[in-house]
């Protein structure tokens, strides 16, 4: 009897393990697959499995040795394989010149951070809900594509608005084809993304992602106006940051959770993770604009100041150096303004406070995602938050 039970348990365990890894795809022999089979991963816990001892994941600052845990990037690499090819394919059935312009920024040079987060969240939620339907995963991959298309369409329009001359070390799209055709190509990308969205056959998802479009425009408008009242400025900056950066990530995360069958509580977890990570992401970007060298960034330093934008480091610095306030109001237009602001920011505690705020957002994101059933994907989302903070050093 005892032997039978043990055998049954063993069989149950191994069949579960096989089932668990089969969803990683047909590419056996890849790193994630081997990782799951070779080592008894203590975080690999599922309700149906035999209870193993699992370390608590409820702390705010989860410290896990980064080297052992696969990154989000590597875990979803297979899922996202061909992402850019697929996007380009979707934009190819049109006039030759339009095809060229539309495909220009989809050459795979981007960081693809949005698809990575989206797909990793999709996997984490699927694991949490024990969602294994292949069609769900297919649709979630489409969300990753759509998110990247919306993001890129907004980059195309941004380059015209900001009169940019380069992006990712290449001439920007408006330089190559002129402003008019670039804007229209951006509309085309958006239209194709909307068509893809409609084909997912989920009304709630369409509502979520169309809200992103409204937020992106509103964020751009918010960026145009400077708040007179300095006490309102930070709130204005936060809201603008949500609309311009975090909104897309937050709603994409929520969208994949909806496709997985999440209830509103779980959707909120996904949304909040996306939101906090998005906010942190922008804060780190704003920080790096001051401290990184132009070689690291791929664009000139203090670009934000040159564009007249007062980001978090400047806003924090202005609390100490009130002489920054008139500069902020006139958007650093006078000669010497940008240089003065740059100097004052470096002298102030603006950078440190920005780091602290970014850390706070990351910790919040981790707290959110800790509510999911532990899995390599859930862990990778935690690691992502840590990697983000790591970039600030």
């Amino acid at each position, binding site marked *: 009897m005892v032997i039978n039970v043990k055998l049954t348990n063993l069989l149950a365990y191994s069949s579960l393990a096989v089932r668990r890894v089969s969803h990683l795809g047909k590419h056996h022999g890849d790193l994630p697959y081997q990782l799951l089979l070779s080592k008894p991963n203590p975080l690999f816990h599922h309700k149906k499995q035999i209870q193993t001892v699992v370390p608590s994941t409820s702390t705010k600052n989860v410290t896990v040795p980064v080297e052992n845990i696969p990154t989000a990037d590597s875990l979803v690499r297979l899922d996202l394989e061909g992402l850019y090819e697929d996007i380009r394919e979707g934009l190819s059935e049109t006039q030759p010149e339009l095809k060229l312009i539309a495909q220009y920024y989809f050459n795979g040079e981007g960081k693809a951070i949005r698809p990575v987060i989206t797909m990793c969240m999709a996997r984490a939620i699927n694991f949490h809900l024990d969602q294994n339907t292949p069609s769900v995963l297919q649709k979630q991959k489409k969300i990753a594509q759509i998110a990247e298309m919306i993001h890129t369409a907004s980059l195309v329009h941004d380059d015209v608005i900001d*009169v940019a001359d380069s992006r990712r070390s290449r001439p920007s799209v408006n330089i190559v084809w002129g402003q008019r055709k670039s804007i229209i190509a951006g509309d085309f990308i958006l239209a194709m993304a909307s068509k893809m969205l409609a084909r997912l056959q989920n009304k709630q998802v369409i509502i979520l992602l169309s809200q992103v479009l409204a937020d992106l425009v509103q964020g751009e408008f918010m960026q145009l106006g400077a708040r007179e009242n300095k006490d309102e400025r930070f709130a204005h900056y936060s809201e603008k940051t949500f609309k311009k950066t975090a909104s897309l990530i937050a709603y994409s995360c929520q969208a994949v959770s909806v496709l997985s069958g999440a209830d509103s509580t779980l959707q909120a977890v996904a949304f909040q993770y996306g939101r906090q990570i998005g906010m942190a992401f922008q804060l780190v970007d704003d920080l790096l604009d001051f401290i990184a060298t132009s070689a690291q960034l791929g664009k000139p330093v203090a670009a934000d100041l040159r564009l007249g934008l007062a980001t978090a480091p400047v806003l924090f610095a202005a609390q100490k150096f009130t002489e920054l306030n008139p500069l902020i109001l006139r958007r650093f237009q006078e000669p010497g303004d940008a240089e003065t602001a740059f100097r004052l920011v470096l002298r102030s505690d603006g950078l440190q406070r920005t780091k602290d705020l970014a850390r706070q957002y990351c910790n919040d994101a981790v707290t959110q995602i800790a509510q999911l059933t532990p899995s390599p994907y859930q862990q990778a989302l935690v690691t992502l938050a840590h990697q983000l903070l790591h970039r600030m050093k």
Partner: protein
Amino acid sequence: MVSRNGLICWKTLQSGCIRSTNPVNVTISRRLCVSSQICQNNWVQAVSNAEKIVGLPTSFLSLRSEAIDEISNIAVYLKKLIGTGHPLLDTAKNLMYSQDKTNQTRGLLVLLVSKAAKIDQTQDILPKQRTLAEITDLVHAAHLIHTGVINLNTPNESLEMGNKMAVLCGDFLLARSCVLLANLQNLKVVELIAQAISDFSTAEFIDIVANETDSALDRWRYQSKLRYGTLLAHACQSSLILGDNVDLVEFGKYFGLEIALAWQANNEIQSYKNAKEKADHVLFKLFPPGTPFKEVISNFQAVRDTHVDAALQMLGELPKNDASLALCNIARALKY
């Protein structure tokens, strides 16, 4: 049935015969056409009468009434553009205050089709259908604004600001359309309108030059279909889907296309008449070089009229009511 001034004469002359163009009235209107101003009044009259049947389209009013922050931002920046010569000013002016009643007529056509299709005429146009009419006007406005972005090779602060505003205004209208569209909760309609946006973007890359298979006129038709036809066709289709008039969906598609082509053809004729440099106008390129001005006009009027007649023929499929009559009036008014 409510009678209106403009419609009484149609009804008394020939009740229930929408199919054929009434020859008597056409001659009357031709005699009255001593100047295009009076003929344009036919259009304005037809549109005004139609508005009384389905209610004034509220496409841009709702934007103003919601006191959105962006609108006040836009107004401030538009004022700064005065004197710069950026096309956005003219476009915005035409959209807000249209003398010839064209800025919301696309939406109006959608409303008319929605109303005309209703078997029970006491039934009102559905809120969803009104929203769709608004979406049609917003998308069209976004298209006009975005195509007004100018190519700048040298830095020019005020024109750059104009471009910036053009991009943002257009994006604002498109985003709003998408949000409204999503809330209609109909996947087919989302796809149809997305296709319209995709089509008018593609239209910018079509050149009106004859090639091995197509004449220049064919290319014009193709470009106009993409630029204006798809939007009206798909909007009419969508409205009929939302109104549950499944059997009339095909009608909506073809009627929308024909009326859009007729309308655009008429616009080309009017602008050609007013053009200072005839040789720069698109109509000049559609006919062999050296064709006299009057011949270009009459040839293209024939093109326009084929589309008007096609639209009128499609309208024959509709039940006879105030709204379908109003559609006939509007179509006929294009023949000026």
